[in-house]
């Protein structure tokens, strides 16, 4: 057995202090297999050691929450015995190194998290962030990531219905690929990971184990450097065909009573799945690695325990159910192997993980100290300095209002994402009621008139300028996007992408964003039910913009009532809900038209988020949608009122005549300001809507009428919808048709 040197410890990403704790727990020097297991279990990715202290402060409960954070995914009750199970997870580092496989396996991993719990995935979303368009790698990364997501999701037959895509130089060396899956299960047939029943068999199903992805979790927990390309072998390779079979086989077995516990093998593979099952159940496991189905010859215990080969699951079955279960997996042409047995905990109540390989005992680890006593850090942090609010008058006017609008609708960040979502099958399963391109996707609960609305949002530049407000805004924007379809927002999943937490200012961003998210969740009755933390998103010491991506899910009781963002016909009244103050600090206008990057103090504070106002305005809008009085609804976010109006016009191919109601504000501040808590609606019954708004104390302004092929403001400003649409639709195909894309 090789001696563990300080170099070996360092290579495993463990600090000296952490290694001392290892020695204390073991009461002896670990062997290399044991050290490897400690290393992945205590990696940031698996242990949340820097973030745990703060994540605990997030609200996670509501009467409709069946299962909050801690399991594979969060679960909410959507009535009639149905449950929605969802989570978002990052696959950032692998996607930068190998975009196709990195993104594909990210999608595969998050779907496994959801179907492990007994749900059939019904929708995928993805939030993508790339470096600036001019960066030499950007096209290649966009190309690979989009194809990888499509390649996996399309084969699985799960529609990819929504998401976001943003370009910013802070992601030049560290892109973000956040994938979200929403699944449906019966509330009385949900599966958890806690192992139980001493002597019960531990069963391995799915793909064979190879040497791919060894130490992927450790890689995801360090910064990138110039030589990260050399880490390519730690990126896993996905096989969506096998995953589709695994999905069907698992769901078939879940219709029987054979399963005690089930856990997918994700990051840190067999190690984390077996430890999580054993520690949740308070038992030990004796595992014989000779029985692990292997793809390569002469694999060591170390390699098998740390492999991140995809499309694998670990289950504990009830005794005597092995043959029936085996028959199901054989029908689906998948491996099925009994590789272990549950064992009694020792006298101290500690279960042990005892591994055998080629007739020898190769590891004996106490489970609880490894799983629960992982280090927890209270990293030093400093609050982000507050910025001044920019006055609307202080930001220069454009030479032409409509010219600026066209630039924003046709720029890297304002243009249509059709090039992306047309590469995703967004209709398979036959329940996609609102396709990509709107505020939120709407997917019907199969065989019913209920539907789930889902969206993902965050405005990283806001979070950078003010983490608390930015955290609030990310949650509030998902809530608004769901509301704009008529859905009742129920819960969120959060995917926290940040830089190096060992830098106090980065830790300060994290702490602030968590505070803002928690504020919004509480105020909106909209708890966090699952999530994922991705730290060390840095290359050569430069961090990304703090990016806490929020995935929101809401319920629509009667899907026939939902509305989209396209103007609901000609001759409809256009009403803006919510007050306009012309807030241009951190606005898209400031970035795209004035050419700022948002980093400097003089780029101002992001728009304030008044959560009580969000709730009041949103509840009013939802009520109107459900009562059938409005024909279209769009939330106002990036680019303000004018961009929102343009999007409504382009979607419907209908123009509008808008009064100049800017009053005391400069027109560009009125048009492009990003004040929160606002929506634009169309209706054929404006008097009634305005009257009800007044009664509810909701600010509502009639601003114009739909019709013609032009979008016109006042008497002077006009542009044809076709011209806007051409700019909007052409940026991304033009950008990607460049030969460097391949």
């Amino acid at each position, binding site marked *: 057995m090789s001696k563990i040197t300080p170099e070996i410890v360092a290579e495993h990403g463990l600090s000296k202090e952490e290694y001392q704790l290892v020695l204390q727990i073991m009461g002896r020097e670990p062997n290399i297999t044991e050290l490897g297991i400690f290393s992945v279990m205590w990696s940031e990715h698996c242990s949340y050691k820097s973030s745990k202290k703060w994540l605990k402060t997030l609200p996670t409960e509501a009467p409709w929450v069946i299962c909050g954070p801690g399991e594979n995914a969060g679960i909410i009750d959507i009535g009639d015995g149905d449950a929605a199970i969802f989570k978002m997870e990052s696959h950032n580092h692998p996607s930068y190194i190998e975009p196709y496989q990195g993104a594909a396996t990210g999608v595969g991993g998050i779907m496994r998290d959801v179907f492990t719990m007994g749900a059939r995935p019904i929708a995928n979303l993805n939030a993508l962030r790339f470096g600036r368009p001019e960066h030499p790698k950007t096209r290649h990364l966009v190309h690979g990531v989009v*194809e990888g997501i*499509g*390649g996996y999701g*399309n*084969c*699985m*037959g799960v529609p990819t219905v929504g998401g976001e895509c943003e370009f910013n130089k802070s992601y030049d060396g560290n892109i973000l690929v956040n994938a979200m899956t929403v699944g449906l299960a019966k509330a009385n047939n949900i599966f958890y990971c806690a192992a139980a029943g001493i002597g019960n068999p531990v069963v391995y199903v799915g793909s064979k184990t190879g040497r791919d992805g060894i130490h992927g979790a450790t890689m995801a927990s360090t910064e990138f450097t110039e030589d990260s390309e050399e880490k390519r072998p730690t990126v896993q390779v996905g*096989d*969506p*065909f*096998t995953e*589709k*079979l695994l999905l069907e086989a698992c769901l078939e077995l879940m219709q029987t009573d054979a399963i005690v516990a089930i856990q997918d093998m994700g990051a840190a593979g067999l190690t984390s799945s077996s430890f999580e099952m054993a520690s949740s159940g308070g038992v030990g496991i004796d595992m014989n690695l000779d029985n692990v189905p292997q793809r390569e010859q002469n694999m060591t215990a170390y390699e098998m325990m740390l492999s991140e080969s995809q499309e694998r699951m670990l289950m504990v079955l009830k005794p005597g159910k092995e043959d029936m279960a085996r028959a199901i997996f054989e029908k*689906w*042409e998948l491996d099925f192997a009994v590789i272990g047995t549950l064992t009694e905990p020792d006298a101290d109540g500690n279960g042990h993980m005892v591994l055998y390989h080629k007739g020898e005992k190769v590891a004996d680890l106490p489970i609880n100290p490894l799983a629960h006593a992982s280090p927890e850090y209270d990293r030093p942090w400093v609050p982000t300095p507050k910025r001044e609010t920019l006055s609307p008058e202080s930001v220069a006017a454009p030479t032409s209002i409509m010219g600026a609008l066209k630039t924003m609708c046709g720029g890297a960040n304002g243009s249509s994402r059709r090039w992306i*979502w*047309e*590469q*995703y*099958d*967004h*209709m*398979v*399963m*036959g*329940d*996609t*009621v609102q*396709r990509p391109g709107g505020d939120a996707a709407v997917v*019907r609960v199969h065989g019913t008139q209920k539907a789930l609305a889902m969206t993902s949002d965050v405005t990283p530049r806001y979070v950078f300028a003010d983490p608390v407000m930015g955290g609030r805004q990310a949650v509030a924007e998902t809530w608004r996007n769901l509301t704009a379809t008529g859905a009742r927002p129920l819960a969120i999943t959060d995917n926290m992408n940040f830089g190096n937490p060992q830098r106090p200012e980065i830790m300060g961003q994290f702490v602030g964003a968590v505070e803002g998210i928690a504020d919004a969740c509480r105020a909106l009755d909209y708890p966090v039910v699952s999530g994922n933390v991705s730290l060390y998103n840095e290359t050569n010491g430069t961090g990304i913009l703090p990016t806490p991506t929020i995935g929101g899910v809401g319920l629509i009781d009667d*899907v*026939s009532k939902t509305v989209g963002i396209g103007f609901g016909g000609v001759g409809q009244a256009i009403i803006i809900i919510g007050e306009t103050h012309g807030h241009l600090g951190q606005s898209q206008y400031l970035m795209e038209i004035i050419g700022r990057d948002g980093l400097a103090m003089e780029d101002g504070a992001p728009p304030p988020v008044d959560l009580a106002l969000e709730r009041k305005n949103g509840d009013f809008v939802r009520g109107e949608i459900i009562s059938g009085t409005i024909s279209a609804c769009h939330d106002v976010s990036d680019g303000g009122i004018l961009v929102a109006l343009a999007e409504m016009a382009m979607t419907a191919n209908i123009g509008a005549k808008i009064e100049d109601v800017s009053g005391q504000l400069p027109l560009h501040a009125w048009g492009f300001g990003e004040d929160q808590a606002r929506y634009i609606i169309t209706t054929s019954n404006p008097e009634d809507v305005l009257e009800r708004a007044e009664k509810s104390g909701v600010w509502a302004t009639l601003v114009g009428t739909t019709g013609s092929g032009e979008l016109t403001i006042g008497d002077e400003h006009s542009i044809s919808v076709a011209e806007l649409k051409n700019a909007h639709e052409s940026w991304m195909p033009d950008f990607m048709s460049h030969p460097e894309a391949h």
Partner: protein
Amino acid sequence: MKACVIVFPASNCDRDMQVALERSTGKKVDMVWHRESDLSGYDLVAVPGGFSYGDYLRCGAMAARSPIMGAIKKHADRGGLLLGVCNGFQILTEAGLLPGVLMRNANLKFVCRDVELTVERNDTAFASGYTKGQKIRIPVAHHDGNYFTDDETLKRIEGNGQVAFRYVDNPNGSLNSIAGVYNERGNVLGLMPHPERLVDAQLGGTDGLPMFDALAKGAA
């Protein structure tokens, strides 16, 4: 009218096809696993879309050698109605039941969007609910829908009137904008677009419905 849907490993539009057929026929539609070998009780057999065998080797190539294929050929030979959509179309060409092949899309990208089709003929069990020359809107969702044949075959199928549907705006590079073809006898139809995806107004259209309604009536 008794219909069934064949299920291969990683078929994934099987349920969508079942829903569309059940909606029009009002009867239960069976799902038949690819290891079965008897289809004698069925009037209509549907081979659905998806990624049978992960599209490994060539789309549809492995499924075309599945145990069920013998029964599918027998069904077609005795004049039974056979519908292949998307991957189902690829499988039927691989099995030699329909002419031509489906190559990778000309732009090498997966494409999912509604496209406009022209109905080339309406004197078949599949298309009698449409008018000849009618424009219908049906979604495509494929990576390999670029229809190709040699010149001789092309001349033959055009001459025989075997072209079922043509794209108005060709999304994948298909020869003569061919979106779907019949066999010579007209009882087997393969097409890349997914009529089963637009049979419900809530999902944005019903242009696929006349095909299933016609099948339900015609083979009653």
